[in-house]
């Protein structure tokens, strides 16, 4: 069971990690360098054999360590989760050690985090975009990236030649969403932020 003894024991073995207070499950924070060490220990000694999730959080451009990798492990014995927070140091070109060797399941999760945040997982066997197409220049889940998207050419030249289609910002006009949630009520009201889009476009033949 995950109780005080367990946590103390774990902290003793891994003095670099410490416990963050969270209300749902045990949350450890761990420096990026020690992550393989910690996860290997958790997998082999503590029966956390199921990597359920690996993702990242963009804390905003102003924060010192902008990208935080979050790992969720599950133990079929303890029937409980453990969460590991780990910061990527470099904000410009964030890097993080790949735990693919510990959990093969991390393969795609890491590719997704790379795709969405641009975090380079060192030691990953096949680190390339997984959801967006290979040539896509941006990292969509970063906070500065707008929901509507940014103009880029469509990946297929021959299709573009015929249809003149391109990747354009999506219209936010009359959209049901976009609500800031903070500030004055008039700002928080769901509304369209961007109303520049028009219907005046040529349709293909």
């Amino acid at each position: 069971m995950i109780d005080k003894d367990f946590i103390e024991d774990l902290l003793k073995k891994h003095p670099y990690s410490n416990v963050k207070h969270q209300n749902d499950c045990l949350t450890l924070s761990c420096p990026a360098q020690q992550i393989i060490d910690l996860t290997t220990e958790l997998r082999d000694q503590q029966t956390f054999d199921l990597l359920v999730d690996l993702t990242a959080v963009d804390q905003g451009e102003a924060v010192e360590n902008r990208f935080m990798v979050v790992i969720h492990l599950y133990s079929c014995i303890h029937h409980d989760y453990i969460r590991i927070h780990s910061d990527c140091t470099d904000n410009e070109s964030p890097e993080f050690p790949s735990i693919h060797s510990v959990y093969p399941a991390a393969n795609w999760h890491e590719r997704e985090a790379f795709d969405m945040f641009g975090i380079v997982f060192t030691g990953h066997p096949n680190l390339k975009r997984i959801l967006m197409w290979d040539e896509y220049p941006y990292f969509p889940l970063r906070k500065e990236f707008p929901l509507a998207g940014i103009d880029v050419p469509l990946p297929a030249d021959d299709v573009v030649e015929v249809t003149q289609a391109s990747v354009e910002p999506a219209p936010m006009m009359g959209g049901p969403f976009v609500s800031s949630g903070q500030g004055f009520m008039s700002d928080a009201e769901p509304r369209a932020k961007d109303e520049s889009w028009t219907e005046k476009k040529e349709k293909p033949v």
Partner: protein
Amino acid sequence: MSEVTFKEVQVGDSGYRDAVAEERLNSERMALNVGPSHPTTHGVLRLMMELNGDLIEKCEPVLGYLHRGDEKIAENMTYNQFVPYTDRLDYLSPLANNVAYAIAVENLAGVKVPERCEAIRVMICEMARISSHLLGMGVFGMDAGAWTPFMYTFTEREKLYTLFEELTGARFTTSFTRIGGVARDIPEGWLQKVSRFCEELPKAIEEVEKLLTRNRIFLDRTEGVGVISSSDALAFGLTGPNLRASGVDFDLRKDKPYSGYEKYDFEVPIGTRGDCYDRYLVRIEEVRESLKIINQLIDDFPAGSWYAEDAKKIFAPPKEKIMTSMEELIQNFMIVTEGPQVKPGEIYFEAENPKGALGFYIVSKGGGVPYRMKIRAPSFCNLSILEKLAPGHMLADITVILGSLDFVMGECDR
């Protein structure tokens, strides 16, 4: 002019851009591109394969053809507004997604929903499981070449759709839950209809089983094909029926009960060999177990409130109250404009969905909008084993393996 050049592209080779795939590696191997629009891939998965004769040497799945940016959208809207998007994750069981999402946000907000609401949720979850597994079985049969079981299971699904429609107002994309409750109470006489359906369903399943389960050809096609060992299954993060078919007893409904699942008596079917046939059998058994749960619920459906009445900042009260009472009107206005007010913090919640464990990791900085939401899609993890699983099988096995993994690209790509 360029139209003519398009016609040069081979059927099935659409979207072929990678230089790796285009060049023939050596004379014995043949690069084959399956999808993204191919009858086998159930949607828009693309497989880049290298074949040696009919044998697969390498198989690389390419996803993202249905990436719609759900996580980014979630960051830009209030919690309740995101409910319709959860419908379209695993679009074979929208209700189960709704429930998982609602519970995740409620856990973050610290709201406890009353017993009747929990019962409604369990009910719709299990119905969604039945509907999803029915389609899974049917499509699996179709992948093996038998079309008729698919039609039979779809007939049953249509009955379920009718029930969903009566409950939620929509047959397919239900958006039924709200944070702190559900959209409305169950209508009168609905439970009787459900129980009638529960009586009819086993017969229909039997009929499908007659066509498939003991069929020699079907056994030949599925037994011993796509075997996933339990250690592999765990290592690749498989969940749901796919993991259980490999012999791992992992069911969040039993292990980490939510929404009052601990109150119901049901078994968790476990496979032994982890092949395609086991996955099929596990799904069929799960349908039967779900029926058990539903029957228990119908026998003893809890009365009381169907939404968290005390959560004033979370749940917008029912329409009739809004129209008559000023306080409720203001409450409704606040929730609609600002969203349910949630404390800062993090939550990770997983629910046992038909396809596996659907997890929501939500980071909140307070207010009605999540700061970051990660959706842990079971299909995404289930598919990741394909790269390891496919080599050594024949091309025709791929259809069966994909069918048995029973993934949905909607939640895989999000």
